[in-house]
């Protein structure tokens, strides 16, 4: 059932409107930040209004304007999109609190720019979640790249500029060089760019063309961090902690994988994927290699943020591998892994920022014994790492459950093995950090004597998201209902 309604459009646009207000309130920081919270709450309320309808099986659609014949700037809300939007907007609130705690005491004068770019980024992430066709998605995808550039280069020093350059070169080269032509070829072949259950291609489309297009899309949306187009992710870690956390754990990278889920289910179609072994094979191989390699690299990193970045690259490939399995539970696992990994990774990034603020420690080898000085931060870190590894009682367990189920459903036992190896690697690079922080003797006793928990404005958001890791475990069934609605539209159409 489709129902035309303008709410999706307002949900997308509201934080952009907030961005305008934010940049006007440059001199009144309290009002400026109040606007953010107000926008986030309105956005959440509007999202909640859509929930009952979507769970009922409705698809809310809205076309703003026709951009090309047959292709408009249109929105369509389904379960997976709503879930993704919900996660991004919810996590926006703790991150804003954290940013206030981090940036205000430093008298950082680029705060206004920071908050307004942040709001635009949230707008475009939700825009991608609600896109009804490839063109709309591409537009929001590009806006996201551009609006996050000032965030990556926030510090405006040489390192930041270098990171920012890498960020834009990787993202724009791939999207203009691969995704755009792929999109145009799809339009030229089929005359449509709409996401539809069963895909847009005719039956007689050659397998070679499909495979080439799939590879172009996989690498074209480089925000998904598939190797060898992943180097921007560690490079962008020069950004302040809140940026890394929200954008590089939630909005930016998840937009990448979400786009790929959308394209694989809505443009290619699950049936077509399942019936074209060459297609799924290539997706699985690309994702599988990235998965293992990234986990191994993460193991060797001493810089905490770099380790987190490589861990992100590996976890994103879980999602793509899940789609590549082309079975219902594989796709369900992929769609669920987006929110599950988001809460876990955001906690870890916030903690990394807090550790640096409290102790000045960037490298893992410096973190021996800091757990006794900043216990709350390290407990949050522990919960976050459990969620990313995928151990109960945290959300990561649920999504991995579905992913592993998916490998068996589609008879890809090797993928099952890969998932298990990678989970072990995850445990190997995360658990020692917490262990050493609490139980190892500090190498230099006097160094962290004066260290104490950072300001409450930073601790509370971390604890909130850490609790979130547990909550998503207990409410995973509700989340599955959203995914089920998505599967009903896209995976079970024929």
């Amino acid at each position, binding site marked *: 059932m489709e129902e035309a309604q303008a709410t999706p459009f307002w949900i997308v646009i509201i934080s952009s409107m907030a961005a305008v207000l934010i940049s006007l309130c440059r001199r009144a920081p309290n009002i400026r930040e109040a606007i953010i919270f107000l926008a986030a709450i309105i956005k959440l309320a509007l999202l909640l209004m859509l929930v009952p309808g979507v769970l009922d099986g409705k698809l809310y659609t809205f076309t703003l*304007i*026709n*951009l*090309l*014949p047959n292709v*408009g*700037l249109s929105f369509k809300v389904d379960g997976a999109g709503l879930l993704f939007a919900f996660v991004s907007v919810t996590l926006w609130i703790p991150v804003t609190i954290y940013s206030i705690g981090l940036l205000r005491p430093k*008298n950082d*004068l*680029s705060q206004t720019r920071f908050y307004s770019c942040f709001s635009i980024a949230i707008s475009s992430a939700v825009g991608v979640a609600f896109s009804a066709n490839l*063109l709309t998605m*591409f*537009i929001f995808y*590009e806006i996201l790249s*551009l609006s996050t*550039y000032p965030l990556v*280069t926030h510090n*405006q*020093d040489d390192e*930041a*500029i270098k990171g*920012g*350059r890498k960020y*834009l*070169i990787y993202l*724009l*080269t791939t999207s*203009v*060089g691969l995704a*755009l*032509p792929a999109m*145009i*070829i799809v*339009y*030229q072949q089929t005359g449509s760019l709409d996401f539809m259950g069963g895909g847009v291609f005719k039956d007689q489309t050659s397998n070679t063309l499909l495979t080439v297009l799939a590879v172009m899309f996989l690498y074209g949306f480089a925000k998904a961090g598939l190797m060898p187009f992943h180097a921007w992710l560690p490079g962008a870690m020069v950004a302040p902690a809140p940026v890394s956390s929200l954008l590089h754990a939630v909005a930016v990278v998840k937009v990448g994988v979400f786009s790929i889920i959308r394209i694989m289910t809505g443009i290619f179609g699950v049936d077509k994927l399942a019936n074209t072994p060459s297609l799924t094979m290539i997706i699985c191989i690309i994702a599988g290699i990235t998965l293992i390699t990234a986990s191994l690299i993460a193991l060797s990193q001493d810089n905490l943020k770099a380790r987190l970045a490589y861990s992100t690259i590996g976890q994103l490939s879980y999602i793509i591998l899940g789609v590549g399995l082309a079975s219902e539970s594989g796709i369900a696992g992929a769609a669920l892994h987006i929110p599950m990994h988001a809460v876990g990774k955001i906690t870890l990034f916030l903690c990394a920022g807090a550790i640096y603020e409290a102790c000045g420690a960037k490298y893992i080898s410096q973190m021996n014994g800091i757990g006794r000085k900043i216990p709350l931060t390290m407990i949050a870190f522990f919960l976050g790492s459990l969620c990313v590894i995928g151990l109960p009682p945290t959300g990561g367990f649920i999504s991995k459950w579905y992913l592993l189920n998916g490998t068996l459903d589609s008879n890809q036992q090797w993928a099952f093995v890969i998932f298990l190896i990678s989970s072990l690697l995850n445990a190997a690079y995360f658990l020692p950090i917490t262990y050493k922080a609490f139980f190892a003797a500090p190498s230099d006793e006097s160094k962290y004597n004066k260290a104490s928990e950072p300001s409450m404005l930073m601790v509370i958001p971390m604890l909130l998201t850490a609790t979130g890791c547990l909550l998503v475990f207990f409410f995973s069934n509700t989340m599955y209902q959203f995914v089920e609605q998505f599967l009903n539209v896209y995976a079970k159409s024929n």
Partner: protein
Amino acid sequence: MIKHLPIFIVLAPLLGAVLAALTSWYRPKLSFPIVLSGLFISCLSSFCLIFNILNSESGVIHYQLGGWGDKGEYGIVGIQITVDYLNGLILTAVTIISLLTAIFSSQSVNRELAGQQRYFFALFSLLVTGLLGITITGDIFNLYVFMEIAALSSYALIAYGKGRSYMASFNYLIMGTMGACLYLLGVGFVFVKTGTLNIENLSLLIPQTLQTSQTVFVGFVLIIVGAWAKMAFFPMHGWLPNAYTYAPTASGALLAPLATKVSVYAMIRIMITVYSIDYVLKSPNIQTAALLLSSIAILVGSFFSLTQTNLRKIACYFIVSEIGYMVGGAWLANDPGLKGAVYHIIADAAMTSALFMVIGCILFRTGQVELKKLDGLFYKMPITFIALVITMAALIGVPPTCGFFSKFYLIQGAAQAGTWHFVGALLISSLIKAVILFRIIEIGYNKVPNPAKEGNKTIPRDEAPISMLIPTLIVTLSLIALGIFTDTLITDFIAKALPEIPAP
């Protein structure tokens, strides 16, 4: 009155030019308002005209100059003005941009060319007359006349810049004259065979009875090559970068967006109306050559822009590459390709206009546009800088600006025709422009650490004057507006302007 609307478009700036030149003898200050009102009338008439076309059934408006109408068996004898969707759209764009440029240039002319304003604005108006004439006329010889009017006034406008501009203008003169000669020669060939110069008559004669005539074919080649020289198509682009770089700000801002685009229009008109798409498709050698040259033009323009350090030179090489877009799109000779080419005429006119206006603003305040001396530009001229970034984004083809949609159609056309080198050239040029944008952002925005931060010296804000800023902003925002209304533009105007081309 309504009947005479088409001629007003050309007549108003022509009279403006003459009056401005005459009154400047005793009241030099009057020349600018006279020219401005001439352009305003022209703009208004073009708006009325496009609405008339939209409301008319046939979508074509004819106007016989001096009443020399249809003389039965001789066909149409006098000069005929024909306005349909294609040139109606381009007329509107030309009049709007020239009006905005006139407003934009008053301040910079007063400063750069103090004491010479009177003839400058007369020439300015004369150039606009020429460009509008090329667009509106329905007669290929008349087109040549207007081409020369535009060319002669632009030589003078460029030479106003002094110093190297004399040489640049001279180079342009040589190349422009050669182009015009070739064009005229081509017209001669066609006239010998057909006995008519009227585009409508020709469009009935050539595709039907003279398909195989060698004379007509040679005429076709000569006309096309002549038009290429006029539009600075590779390898005849050498005159353009210097001419537009060393010209005064105002001349550059008027010439860069309009002069080359109007020549592209002339080429498309010759291709699709005088000859026909079938005719074009039956000369595959020229088609292959044109497409190959387009790809090379795009790449050469882009790579040369990468090596330049002067923002104006960069912009000039952009024009060279954008010409490749349009010529290539037109010569793909399929539906999306031609749509993309015509759409890109409008889009690129707006983009180039915005770019040169922004450069003019920077030039007005800082006196130079060397790339590496632009550090901290964002803090000095924030609005101008944002306009520059939006314009560059449009040139790259970031959605939802117009540059994205023209590229979309062009690539679609190239994919349909299987011309993959053209696709590659388009994408590479996008990426090179992206590199230049980042360079500008890094220098203008990031190189100077936030001046408001403690310890850094603050850069005083020094924005361009309001009479320059407002036209710049209007054009810049139109880039986004054009992108958003692509569908309207394509289905309501461009699709109706083009002949039906069956998909393969």
